[in-house]
């Protein structure tokens, strides 16, 4: 049953993966549950495609597209509806974005393999690598013993000798057991060997605070890794970021630290058809201006971008137009974009989840002072997590992580609109 719409079924261009093509041609039927399919058919016949899309968007709410592991022979009673009969508003969770990026890169290059704890049979500790074991086999999706130092070193050695490993840390806190290999054998090797040995490895995993996981599972490592030459450090926010940056990271010939966020995995974001293309990537080292503004620049990365965007809405009601920069790349930091923005707005607020001392915000502040000091109309405001190990109690945890009100207050202070300081822990 093909759905008749005015627009061509594929909002995508040439170069889309065969799998997608096949799925399209053989109909959305494979992945849409029967009753829902009938409903759609019925609706479509009655109304124009545009109306169908917008109404569905409201009715269905957030749906995700399940991308992988499905040859056409396998009909899964769909948990996820496939909505590729429109080219505009699709939704995808960050989890699916990462999964699809891994899947596509593994199928494009046989040298890419995934290793980590529980990535195979458990389908990923956070289900990021769901379906990959089934699809690529145990030689390419390796369940490792609990030996971070050992398997990280093995990944680095494999990268030295020609493969492209993706090493998953269950959280980046565990990367501390392997940090010697990340820094000393991966980051520094290209330099020590004068370009002979490049290390095309990706270290990925959730970073930063989750919900109530305590001090040893909640640290943000952006600043630590961001200070090491030889590493590229990326931190996506939306699904588009996640997909584009992970693909870029896997293709990159240098060691990349890919800092995800556990609380963002389940969040859904609208994505365009371009993003779903299998050759879509984002450049490493370029920030994105999520929202244009005139009065104050707010930089953030990962989960804090969401908070900053909400803060911008609140500020807009007070007449402050905030420009939100999603850093995307902690190292190399996109200082030209930040500086250009500050020169436009003259005020800067940096937001991060990690510890304040020697943090990302401190680096951004100095980068701006070095280049655009004359343009600053107010001192740079820095919002960071509290300078304590993460407490467990829910209310304390809330106080230890920046909240939307903190960002709003800081922005107002930067605009000389309020005098109240944020509560310090």
């Amino acid at each position, binding site marked *: 049953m093909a759905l008749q719409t005015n627009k061509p079924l594929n909002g995508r261009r040439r170069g889309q993966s065969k799998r997608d093509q096949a799925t399209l041609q053989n109909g959305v039927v494979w992945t849409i549950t029967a009753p829902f399919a009938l409903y759609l058919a019925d609706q479509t016949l009655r109304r124009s495609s545009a109306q169908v899309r917008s109404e569905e968007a409201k009715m269905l709410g957030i749906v995700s597209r399940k991308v992988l592991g499905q040859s056409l022979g396998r009909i899964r009673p769909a948990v996820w509806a496939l909505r590729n009969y429109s080219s505009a508003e699709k939704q995808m969770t960050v989890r699916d974005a990462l999964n699809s990026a891994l899947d596509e890169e593994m199928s494009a290059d046989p040298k890419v393999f995934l290793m980590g704890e529980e990535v195979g049979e458990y389908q990923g500790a956070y289900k990021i690598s769901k379906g990959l074991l089934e699809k690529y086999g145990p030689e390419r999706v390796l369940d490792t013993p609990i030996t971070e130092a050992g398997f990280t070193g093995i990944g680095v050695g494999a990268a030295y000798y020609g493969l492209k490993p993706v090493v998953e840390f269950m959280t980046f806190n565990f990367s501390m057991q392997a940090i010697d290999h990340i820094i000393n054998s991966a980051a520094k090797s290209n330099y020590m060997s004068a370009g002979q040995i490049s290390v095309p490895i990706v270290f990925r995993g959730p970073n930063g605070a989750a919900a109530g996981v305590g001090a040893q599972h909640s640290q943000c490592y952006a600043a630590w890794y961001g200070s090491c030459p030889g590493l590229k450090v990326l931190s996506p926010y939306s699904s588009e970021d996640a997909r584009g940056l992970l693909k*870029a990271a896997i293709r990159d010939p240098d060691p990349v630290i890919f800092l995800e966020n556990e609380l963002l995995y389940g969040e859904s974001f609208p994505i365009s058809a371009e993003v779903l293309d299998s050759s879509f*990537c984002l450049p490493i080292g370029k920030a994105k201006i999520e929202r244009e503004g005139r009065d104050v620049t707010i930089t953030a990365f990962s989960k804090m971008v969401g908070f900053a965007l909400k803060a911008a809405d609140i500020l807009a009601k007070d007449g402050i137009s905030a420009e939100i920069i999603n850093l995307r790349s902690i190292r190399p930091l996109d200082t030209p974009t930040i500086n250009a923005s500050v020169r436009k707005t003259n005020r800067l607020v940096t937001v991060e989840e990690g510890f304040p001392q020697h943090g990302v915000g401190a680096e951004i502040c100095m980068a701006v002072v070095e280049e655009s000091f004359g343009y600053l109309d107010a001192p740079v405001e820095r919002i960071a997590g509290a300078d304590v190990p993460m407490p467990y109690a829910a209310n304390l945890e809330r106080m230890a992580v920046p909240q939307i009100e903190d960002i709003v207050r800081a922005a107002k202070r930067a605009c000389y609109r309020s005098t109240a300081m944020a509560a310090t822990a």
Partner: protein
Amino acid sequence: MASSFLSSGIIQPLPLRSPDKPQTLFDHLKTTSTFLGSTSKLRSVSLSKPNLPNPHRRSTVVAVSDVLKEKKTKSAASSSQLLITREEGLELYEDMVLGRAFEDMCAQMYYRGKMFGFVHLYNGQEAVSTGFIKLLKKEDCVVSTYRDHVHALSKGVPARAVMSELFGKATGCCRGQGGSMHMFSKEHNVLGGFAFIGEGIPVATGAAFTSKYKREVLKEDCDEVTLAFFGDGTCNNGQFFECLNMASLWKLPIVFVVENNLWAIGMSHLRATSDPEIWKKGPAFGMPGFHVDGMDVLKVREVAKEAIQRARRGEGPTLVECETYRFRGHSLADPDELRDPAEKAHYAARDPLTALKKYIFDNKLASEAELKAIEKKIDEVVEESVEFADASPPPPRSQLLENVFADPKGFGIGPDGSYRCEDPKFTEGTAHV
């Protein structure tokens, strides 16, 4: 053929049996290493001997070798078969002389101020490097520690490149950016050179993993083997055990070579280790463990052949403990006061170079004149490398910021010569990356 250090001309490697079922400790002792170079066989056979090795005496290892020697004279095999041909003998001799002469020159240069920082010399251990590395192909990998000059030389990195690197010149094998402890060579597959002990072991395991992956997943014709060299101190490090486990679990083509020189800077191996017999740690993880006299290049070579072929056949890793000794201190800054002069004298008497020389003479493989010619040639090579290094320029200022990334801006230069990520079409569907 009564050469004193290599008794009975023949060493017949007995078939290896790796334990793949859980066995009792006693069985382990019997079956793990049936090779002549191992003490386990010794134990099971020579129980009647009164002077069993007492691990708390420093002369333990000496006793084992002595007993080994005597045991071998009883070997039933014919005594007229040589271990090496003439060409091989000369090749081994030349390599060991190169290692020795080069390291001696390094010491000289250091004291003259041309070399600086940390320099760790390999004098006395040449038999291990030569015995193992001369059996490798160019595509096989070697991963080492900071005591890596001779491993690099044996693998084929030219002496002048290593010497320039030590002087910190732009013509060094790493353009002066690595230094003594970080010898890398992509061409010769020397994957470092690591300052942290134990750091090279997982990297070597990864290279072995790549070799297996190439064979099984990429379906290339690949039987490359990796050798990981490290010391006795490293064998107490967690990464060592983690890698023994994973290498054995995944049957990786790697040989773990322990250069047990009994000392980790000033810490005696016996003071630092609960069970000083390192070869025993192999069977605990399901791989054979061998102990061999590392001052005798021919014995090392025989064990190495077995271990490397085992790895090439895909049967998995091997742990080889080479009993050896470093004649100099840990580094050139080490006053070396804690080692007993009697111990040093004992091992100096077992110098691998003199031993091989004696074997070659005794078996009429070459004449004195030929060996002298080799020594002279090596002296010239080393002199020339010093001159080359002296004459080379130091790295230019612009080199400081180079090579941090293989690709500074993010995967690559596009067809028009600019960085791909600066192409506005980069993120669109048809961008061909």
